[in-house]
Every structure is written in C-alpha cells, then in structure tokens.
C-alpha cells in the first residue's frame, strides 16, 4: 500500500479536456456514461412497450410506433449499451490490469468512442424524421427492411448509425488486442493475465472477425435500398437468406461479445468476496477460448425456421457450447466452496448473474433443438430466454462491475443499503417481467405485436408490473450514484482487499496509472504483495 502513488489524478477537467482527451480512463468513463445513457433511453422505450401491452387492445400508441419502439429498444440495448459498456470497462481496466500507462493507440481509441457516440445518435435520429425510426426489428431482415416495405430515412439512418458504431467497435477491439500483447508490465505473462483480460482478448477477436460481416450486410442492404441493388431481392435473383447468414454470423458472436467480458467481471469479483483464489485458472481460459471458437459455428440456429440450413450441424454445435459454459459455472461454484463469502453488493449481483444466466442458458439448450425451436420460434418464449441470457448475463454483471469498480473510478463508495435495495428490486422486477413470458410463449403468444387476444391479459399485466419494478430499481441505482458523487464515503485505494493491479494505485488512478508496481508472479499480484505468498502454494 505504501508504494501506491499519493497523488490523485481524477477525471475532472473542462468540456474541452473531455472532448480532446486521449487518456484511456477518461475515454472509458465516456464510453460507460454513454452506454448507461442509452441503457436508460432504451429502458424507457421498453417501459412504454410494456405500458401498451399491459392490457389487450391499443391504448397508448399505434402499431407503427410500437414497431419503432421494439426496434430501437433492441438496437439501443445491443449496440449502444452492451457493446460500448464492454469497451468502456475494457478501456478503463485492461491497461490497469496489465500495469500499463495507457492503451496501444490512444488517439484511435478516442476516434472509436466518438464514432460510436455519433453512430448511436445517428440511428436514434430516425425518431426526428417524418417517417419515424427504423421499425423492422433489431435484426433488420429484408424484405421487411427494403425500400418497399420500410420506406423513409429512419431505416437509412439506422443502417448508417450501425455501420459507424460497428467500425468503432472494430477499432476498439484492435486497440485492445495490441494493448494486451504489447503493453504488459514486466512479469505479466499471458498466463498471469487477469481472467477479465483473457475474456477481453477473446471478445476483441470475436469483434474483429464478426463485425465485418455485419458491416458488409448493412452496406449491401443500403445499396439495395438506395442504389438499385438486388443482393437480397429474391425477385431479381438475390437471396434474403444471405442477409440472415451474414447478420447471424455477427449476431451470435455478438451475444458472447456482450457476455464474455462479464464472465470475466464475475470471475474477478467472486474470488475477492470469497477470499479464495480462482479455482482452475487455466480451465477458465480454456472455457473462454472454447466459447469464443464455438460462437462462430452456431449462427444458423437462429435460422432453423427458414428451413434453409443444416439443422443437425447447428443443433450439435449449439448444444456443445453449453459444455465450456458449464466448466465456468463449475469453477465459479468451486471458487466459492468453503470460502469466507461476504455478500456485499458486487457479490450479490454476481449471485443474481449466476442464477439468471443459468435459466437463460438452460432454456437456450431447449431452443437449440430444432423441433422445439420450430414451435417456439418468434414467441415470447424466445423473448424470455433472450432476456434471461442478456439481462442475467450482462445487466446483472454490469451492476456487479459498477458496484465493484465505481469506488476505484470515483474515489467514493456507493451506499450499501441502497445497493441492496437496488438488487432485490431488480431481481424481483426482472423475474416478474420475464418468467411469465416463458408461459406466454408456450401458450403461443407471438412477439413483436402491440395487440393480442385477451386470453393473455393477466400474464401481460403481471409482466408490465414487473417492468415497472425493474425501472424503479434502476432509479434507485441512479439516485445512489448521484448521492455517492456528492457525499459518498472516501473509498481509499483498495476498499475490497482486491487481487489485481488496479487496487495497487490510487482511487481514482493518476494520469499515468502507476508510479510503481509490485512484483508480478501470478494472476493476483496485489494479493501476493500484501500477503507475501508465492505462485507455487496456491496454484488452482
């Protein structure tokens, strides 16, 4: 502790300072702030949808407006909340975990953020046009997304916005890989990287290999819409199924792009709050690599219902991907086994993540079976599965990360009672919203409809009440954050007795991150330095 730097850099500065910064920490904060803003905006869109769905019939909006809302809700959550949040956390903590002063290409890093923000604003600008925002779902399938069925500039703005933000993600990924390979502190070998950084490495590779497929698909769609192209026009010899191949070759790795880093977050938090080393470090690495690899070979399970894909191949690979995920679950449980577990807010959210993601994963295995998928396709069962996977796998873990790392970023603690209130409201609200949707799906209720038969009324009302509670829980977090910024207790350099290098420096870290580093002999160098252990006596 004594070797930690004394001076605090912080994240203060005027507007010009933020607009021109190349500091990875400030860019990380910008990414995270933007991501949270789009989380709130996209969440409000979801609340409006649930308001409409609370009763059968049309109450508060037209069907066209409802289509715009679910499209921009999905787009906002996937592209402008989850992905930027991943890159934001990686921006802030990857160099800190490596003992590096910054990322490999700081200016390119800043370029990536600004492109990401302008891309998001461009896509959402569709709401300001006369014809409204894009209204064909976040997947943008032609022919629904072509110029005949989706005329108007909102769809074009959606395409341009996604191309801009996709390009930004690729820039961010290349930067992170270069940082992980080129800027490690002395002693930080690949197998002493934090598991968070391993997950960021695999995620970056997924972005580098999958986002170009999306960019290509969107560029072709734009040409079809505006320049007389026929790539996806079956009447002119094109193939709409090609769009689905390209989209899902991006789209399924994208699910892991927004989940793998949070597997890493959870793997950093659980050992700290169980006061034990990670069980099976190399098992975690292997599982991460396998998930990354398999994620490239499962894309067409989203296309079973087209009848145009080889179902056995994709069913087999989709079921196989559960094996490395199971390895991770086993290792998380083994890490906690006989540990001195402390259920502070980061750990509580990790528990929420484990249980909610487990439900999402298990229901996904059912959907990997083509006969079940044929029956459940485009029903609320898929909506429920998807939200258990992504809210369970991402949003719970985002809040685990924020409660764990905001004290490092802000230098102030968040209120623990409010954090626990946030957790329980979120857990109850989330399950109330989405658990009933499994039943709605099994009963045959279609997704992406603003109106429905009255037989589904009571479950939908319950789901809408749950969504309200979920929204309230986020308001509790926002209040807690605002309160901590004003009068939170000072965090100190290491409020959790953490393991990795970010806890060696001040809160917030100074401009150059470190003035000195401890000897790096394992994946938890700060613990080693403070407790004088060696690698040999705690190899998992």
């Amino acid at each position, binding site marked *: 502790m004594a070797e930690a730097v004394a001076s605090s850099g912080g994240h203060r500065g005027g507007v010009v300072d933020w607009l021109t910064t190349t500091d990875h920490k400030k860019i990380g904060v910008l990414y995270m702030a933007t991501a949270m803003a789009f989380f709130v905006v996209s969440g409000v869109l979801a609340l409006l949808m649930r308001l409409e769905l609370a009763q059968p019939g049309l109450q508060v909006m037209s069907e066209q407006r409802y289509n715009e809302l679910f499209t921009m809700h999905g787009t906002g959550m996937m592209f402008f909340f989850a992905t930027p949040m991943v890159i934001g956390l990686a921006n802030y903590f990857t160099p800190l975990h490596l003992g590096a002063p910054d990322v490999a290409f700081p200016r390119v890093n800043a370029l990536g953020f600004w492109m990401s923000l302008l891309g998001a604003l461009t896509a959402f600008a569709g709401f300001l046009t006369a014809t409204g925002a894009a209204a064909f779902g976040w997947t943008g399938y032609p022919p629904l997304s072509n110029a005949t069925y989706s005329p108007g500039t909102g769809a074009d703005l959606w395409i341009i916005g996604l191309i801009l933000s996709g390009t930004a993600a690729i820039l961010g990924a290349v930067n992170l890989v270069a940082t992980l*390979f080129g800027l490690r502190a002395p002693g930080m070998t690949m197998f002493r990287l934090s598991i968070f950084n391993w997950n960021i490495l695999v995620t970056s590779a997924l972005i580098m290999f999958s986002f170009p497929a999306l960019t290509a698909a969107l560029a072709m769609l734009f040409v079809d819409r505006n320049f007389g192209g026929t790539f996806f026009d079956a009447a002119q010899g094109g193939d709409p199924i090609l769009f689905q191949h390209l989209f899902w070759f991006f789209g399924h790795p994208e699910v892991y792009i927004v989940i793998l880093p949070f597997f890493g977050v959870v793997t950093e938090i659980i050992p700290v709050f169980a006061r034990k080393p990670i069980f099976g470090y190399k098992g975690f690495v292997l599982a991460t690599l396998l998930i990354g690899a398999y994620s490239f070979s499962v894309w067409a399970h989203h296309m079973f219902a087209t009848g145009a894909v080889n179902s056995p191949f994709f069913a087999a690979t989709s079921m196989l991907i559960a094996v490395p995920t199971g390895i991770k679950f086993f290792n998380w449980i083994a890490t906690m086994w006989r540990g001195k577990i402390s259920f502070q807010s980061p750990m509580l959210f990790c528990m929420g993540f484990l249980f909610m993601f487990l439900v999402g994963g298990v229901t996904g295995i059912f959907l990997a079976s083509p006969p079940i998928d044929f029956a459940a396709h485009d029903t609320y069962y898929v909506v429920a599965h998807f939200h258990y996977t992504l809210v369970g796998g991402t949003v719970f873990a985002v809040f685990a990360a924020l409660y764990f790392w905001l004290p490092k970023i802000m230098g102030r603690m968040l209120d623990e009672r409010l954090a626990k209130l946030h957790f329980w409201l979120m857990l109850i609200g989330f399950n109330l919203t989405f658990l009933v949707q499994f039943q709605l799906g099994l009963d045959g209720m279609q997704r992406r409809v603003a109106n429905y038969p009255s037989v589904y009324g009571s479950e939908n009302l319950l789901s809408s009440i749950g969504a309200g509670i979920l929204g309230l829980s986020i308001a509790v977090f926002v209040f807690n954050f605002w309160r901590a910024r004003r009068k939170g207790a000072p965090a100190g350099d290491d409020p959790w007795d953490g393991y990795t290098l970010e806890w060696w420096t001040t809160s917030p870290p100074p401009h150059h991150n470190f003035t000195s580093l401890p000897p790096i002999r394992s994946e938890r160098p700060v613990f080693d330095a403070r407790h004088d252990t060696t690698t040999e006596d705690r190899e998992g």
Partner: protein
Amino acid sequence: MAEELRFFVRIGLFTLVAGVVYWFLTYEWAGTLLFGFVVIGSAFFAVAIGTLMRGTRPRADTEERQRNILVDAAYRTIGFAEHPGDANHPPLAVADEGIPPSSIWPLVAASAAALVGLGLVFGAWFWFPGMILGAVTAYGWVTELVR
C-alpha cells in the same frame, strides 16, 4: 510457440476444421465462405505476429527440435505452455513512448465520418462538408503526429 501466436493459430485451426465439416455437410456457400474469411483473418494475424516476433526469443537447437517435433507439436500449438523468458521479455512488447497529448482530431475525424454517412442519406449538403472535414482531419492528424 508464444501464446500470442497460438491464440490466432487456434482460431484458424478450429474454423478450418469447422468450415470443412460444414461444407461437406451442407454444400452451402455463404457459411463456408464466412468460415473461410475467419481462417484467412486469423492466418493474417498469425503471420503478422510471427513476423513481429522473429528474433525475439532463442530457437531450440536442431537436435532438440527434431526429438520433440512429433511429441510436442500438438501441445506447442494448442497447449498452454509458456516460454520461461516471457516474464522478463514479453515477445511483442513495445517501448513505452509515453501518453500522447490531448488531440481534437479524433473528434473531428469521427464527425467527418458521420457527415459522410449522413450525406449518403441526405445528399451533398452533408457529404461535401464531410469530405472537406475529412481532408482537414487527415492533414491535421498527420501534422500533429510528425510534430
């Protein structure tokens, strides 16, 4: 083989095998080509990393390599062994050139890209200023780098 290199070799090998299996099961072009692009992309990164790493670590002597080549080939390619020298000399380590000063050009470059994109939707009123801003950015960014 360093882990940095093996990382991309593993991706390439996996997608190569998956792509071949996929082709013979489906005879479907789009998916096979997508697998192929990942193989080519990972090969590109592997070759680039291999080139950057040349000469950064001592090679095992010929006799030892001959003896181990069959026994250890798979482990060295897809296993988790690390070179003992990596702790002191990471194979791809770059010199710390310090943190660059603040720069307005990333924001201007992103604005130029957004304007060009909006120009594709709304016409020359957007893409023309975007192109000019892009040219100014290129000049400003490069000038800032060489200063």
